């Protein structure tokens, strides 16, 4: 009796999940296999009919290319800095969103704005803000007497990359904050009350109550933002197009130019596979680390 009920449930689950499975994996499985296949051939045009088999040559070409390693390094830098900034600021912002505020609804509505603005729009906006000729950042800093000349904020490879990070942080921190806020509101009030009775200091409450309770939310946000940051493309496409001196060329943008500007679809596919492997490895390490920390904290 129990067993057959279980089988019924499994059958129902199968039928309920089929549409989602087809819609998601139907679009993913075949392309991922085909990318693998293409990565072993030389394909130099979207209309090519002559596509010689080259074995692992495309992979060798990718891995022996210094541009690839430089892009990889920049992407890791972008990911590390933007994710950690977003997490720290997101925590503060979540606390603020959770605080007793007059017109809290208004504050929350304001905070949601950067998240709602399409990435392309926010990238175009920041490109304007940093503009060397008429950008308001230059105008503000020079009118305040902080700089005496307009600066080309996107004119130096390192500065440009940091400015792109700034734009990404502005756009993504609210999302992180709302995720963490959801975790914060789930903490039972009694815990705070008990801590207050113990006359625990705020840093102590944060360390021994808030942080452990937030670990699941933090881990999700961390994985999510890391993956997103590693895939960053649209901000770069609009703000800098990878320049100057390739200083903002991230790995996804590099793969895009290889495939669609240089029309090197074989090498582009190999490059995509390398990215997939790195992201999977990164996520696996993350999840393992977090699981360990979760256990030690609980």
């Amino acid at each position, binding site marked *: 009796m129990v067993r057959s009920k279980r089988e019924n449930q499994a059958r129902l689950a199968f039928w309920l999940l089929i549409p989602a499975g087809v819609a998601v994996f139907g679009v993913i499985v075949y392309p991922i296999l085909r990318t693998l296949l293409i990565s072993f051939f030389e394909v130099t045009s979207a*209309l090519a009919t002559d596509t010689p088999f080259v074995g692992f040559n495309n992979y060798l070409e990718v891995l022996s290319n210094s541009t690839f390693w430089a892009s990889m390094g920049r992407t890791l830098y972008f990911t590390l800095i933007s994710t950690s900034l977003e997490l720290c600021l997101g925590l503060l912002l979540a606390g603020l969103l959770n605080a007793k505020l007059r017109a809290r609804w208004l504050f929350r509505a304001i905070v949601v704005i950067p998240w709602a603005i399409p990435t392309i729009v926010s990238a175009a906006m920041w490109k304007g803000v940093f503009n060397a000729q008429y950008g308001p950042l230059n105008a503000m800093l020079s009118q305040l007497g902080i700089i005496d000349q307009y600066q080309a904020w996107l004119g130096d490879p390192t500065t440009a990359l940091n400015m792109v990070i700034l734009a990404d942080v502005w756009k993504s921190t609210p999302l992180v904050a709302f995720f963490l806020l959801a975790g914060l509101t789930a903490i039972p009030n009694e815990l705070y009350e008990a801590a207050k009775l113990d006359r625990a200091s705020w840093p102590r409450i944060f360390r021994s109550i808030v942080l452990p309770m937030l670990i699941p939310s933090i881990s999700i946000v961390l994985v999510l933002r890391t993956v997103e940051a590693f895939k960053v493309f649209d901000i770069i496409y609009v703000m800098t197009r990878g*320049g100057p001196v390739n200083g903002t060329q991230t790995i996804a943008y590099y793969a895009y130019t290889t495939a669609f500007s240089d*029309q090197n679809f074989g090498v582009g596919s190999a490059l995509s596979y390398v990215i997939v492997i790195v992201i999977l490895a990164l996520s696996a390490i993350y999840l393992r680390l977090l699981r360990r920390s979760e256990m030690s904290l609980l």
Partner: protein
Amino acid sequence: MIIKNARTNRLTVGIGLLSLGALLLSGCSLTGASTSNESKEGDGTGAINALFMKQAGYSEDNVNAMIADFESKNPDITVEPTFVAYEALHDKIVTSAPAGTYDVVHLDVIWPADFASKGLITDVTDRFPATWTDEMLGGALTSAEYQGKYYGAPWGPSTKLFYFNKEMVAAVGATEADLTTWDGALAVATKIKAAGLAEYPFSWSWSQAEALICDYAQLLGAFGGAFTDADGKLVVNDAAGVEALTWMKKTIDDGLTDPASITFLEDDVSKSLSAGKTAMALNWESTFRDSNDASISTVVGKVGVLPTPAGPTGEHPGVNGSMALSIGAQSTNQAAAWKFIEYMTSQSVQEQYVTSSMTNWKSSYTKTDLAASNPEVFAAAGVAYDTMILRPTVANYNSVSQILQVEIQNALLGKKTPQQAMDDAVEAANATIG
């Protein structure tokens, strides 16, 4: 790897097998491109889609007016134009090619080798009237030609001219004669800076984009250099190539060039000129029109235009920036597309819109009334089109250009010496040219 339940496992395997099967069935080619040779001619009527560049040259208004006129003369053909920024044009042609979205595409002079060798545009040698080769400017013809075959019709020659703020130049007691050489221009710039008329007298389109290569090409020509040798190998690490780059870097170090140039496209240079912040700049022909448009310019009537200044060798070739119209390889309405191209590139249409883009018909330049409609640009361009410097015509021009852009910027930012940068560029580029 995550272990799935038996059912999903079966499902995954099923989907996998199915997809592999489909791949084998469609196996005529890896890309899915068909090799069939069915006629794509069409019956010469119907709707055609055309992809144009916006900004420099013919404006959207111009193109739309031309289309309206074409449609009234050919009532059985309708043309649907799409305009994209130059920076998006190349990739758009690539990504739209397999779907055959566009019957007509706007081509830059550096792309025929790329697109023709990869089969993205149609060979129109048979349609191309033999007389055109004599009647058109040689520089413009290269924009539609690859390995002796024609892949489109030239649509306006183009080069970068030298623009200057007449007020500023006059204020330091200089004349047009001082601006015929780069040495002269430098001297004038130094005076303008000293007089405090402009913080940075020069601005350039030196961002990491094709625009940088255009400016470099023009200076390379002035220093008597060329991109490639007789074998088609890049040689910009020779004396002239390095000298040109050294000169560029020096104008930044001397405070004569706006350091923000490294983030500028032509459009930003045009804006800087229009805002009265820049005294001298290289830009395309249509900049003259823009600088005299009161809605976007504060220096209306104050901008002069000359051919690009000469270098130490006395040479002053302009960069060949001609454009062409081509038929997309997957277009199924090629007869109508060619009719449209013939009309757009015809002498009468090009002459009608000569303030936006110059014509590529030789006989236009002998018509005095035509020259009178845009005298300043005609005078400058007439000289400029005599000699033009061509960027390398290689199938993977895009990669070569990328390499050059990065290395030139490396030198401009002082991260490498000009010689080192150009050596590295030549090594990397020649490896990809193969």
